[in-house]
């Protein structure tokens, strides 16, 4: 981070950078209290949104004409699947930033997101399996959508295993970043798998280019649950990044000897 500052100052746009001070929270020491302040707000929002989403999903959204009550799995399945892909992109973004700019916090953020991303990937597969059984008659099929989502789960596990296998955290960050960035290619494969291949999995019910092919209340429940999962992911990632900061910086002066910092 400091190295970047010095180079930046030499090239002329450094003054601008310093005035806005984008990099203030790039230091773990500065980000630690900010994460602690934000975390309860995200957690609170997640609880409220989840309560609203469950209410909409079970008490407002009507029974589906074709699938009966089984379709109510959608309020978890689709948001979990969206988060599994979105969190991977966010994780790969921070891993890439850490690789390019050599900022310590970016690597920590990538490590903090991975377990929550794996959690949502597993839930997307689990709920999909419980939905597939009554609708398709099978818990699992080797369909392109299901297989690419399973590969996503292995990418998360691979990222975490690789990082925990390397003792030096900075080297672990760099190795993990390469794996995460290479794995990004899987995200469009998951997303477009239902178009590219003839899958048993249905196509997207929601897209940016046309109105959703479902009842408004069903759609609302799904969106609210997706927001709840998003807020939960932020809360979990911030809580975890605070642990990682303390673990990695335990010998740094601001952690090891905070008495000096007391006013």
């Amino acid at each position: 981070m400091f190295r970047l500052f010095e180079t930046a100052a030499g090239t002329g746009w450094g003054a601008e950078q310093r005035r806005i001070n984008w990099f203030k929270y790039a230091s773990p020491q500065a980000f630690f209290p900010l994460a602690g302040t934000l975390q309860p707000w995200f957690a609170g929002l997640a609880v409220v949104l989840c309560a609203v989403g469950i209410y909409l999903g079970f008490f407002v959204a009507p029974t589906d004409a074709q699938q009966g009550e089984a379709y109510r799995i959608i309020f978890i399945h689709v948001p979990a699947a969206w988060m599994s892909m979105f969190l991977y992109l966010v994780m790969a973004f921070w891993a890439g930033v850490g690789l390019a700019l050599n900022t310590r916090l970016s690597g920590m953020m990538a490590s903090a997101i991975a377990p929550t991303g794996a959690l949502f990937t597993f839930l997307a597969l689990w709920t999909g399996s419980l939905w597939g059984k009554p609708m398709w008659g099978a818990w699992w099929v080797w369909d392109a959508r299901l297989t690419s989502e399973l590969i996503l789960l292995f990418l998360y596990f691979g990222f975490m295993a690789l990082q925990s296998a390397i003792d030096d955290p900075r080297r672990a960050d760099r190795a993990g970043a390469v794996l995460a960035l290479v794995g990004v290619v899987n995200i469009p494969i998951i997303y477009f798998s239902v178009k590219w291949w003839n899958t048993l999995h249905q196509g997207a019910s929601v897209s940016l280019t046309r109105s959703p092919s479902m009842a408004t209340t069903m759609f609302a429940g799904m969106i609210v649950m997706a927001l709840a999962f998003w807020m939960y992911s932020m809360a979990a990632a911030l809580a975890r990044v605070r642990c990682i900061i303390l673990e990695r910086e335990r010998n740094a002066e601001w952690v090891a000897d905070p008495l000096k910092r007391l006013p």
Partner: protein
Amino acid sequence: MNWGGWGEFFAMGGYALYVWGSYAATFALVACEIIFLNLRKRNILRHLGRAGATAQRVVAQHG
């Protein structure tokens, strides 16, 4: 309102296993993650000892 009573609600039109299996797994795993995060935080603070306790206070004061 979709349900005639709690019995009907829990039966989920015959899909109770699949619907409740999904929701139960979600809430169980999220609860596990929250517990693990709290244990991890407690462990590192215990490891840091007095410095950790003070760090927490500093953080509390500075937001």
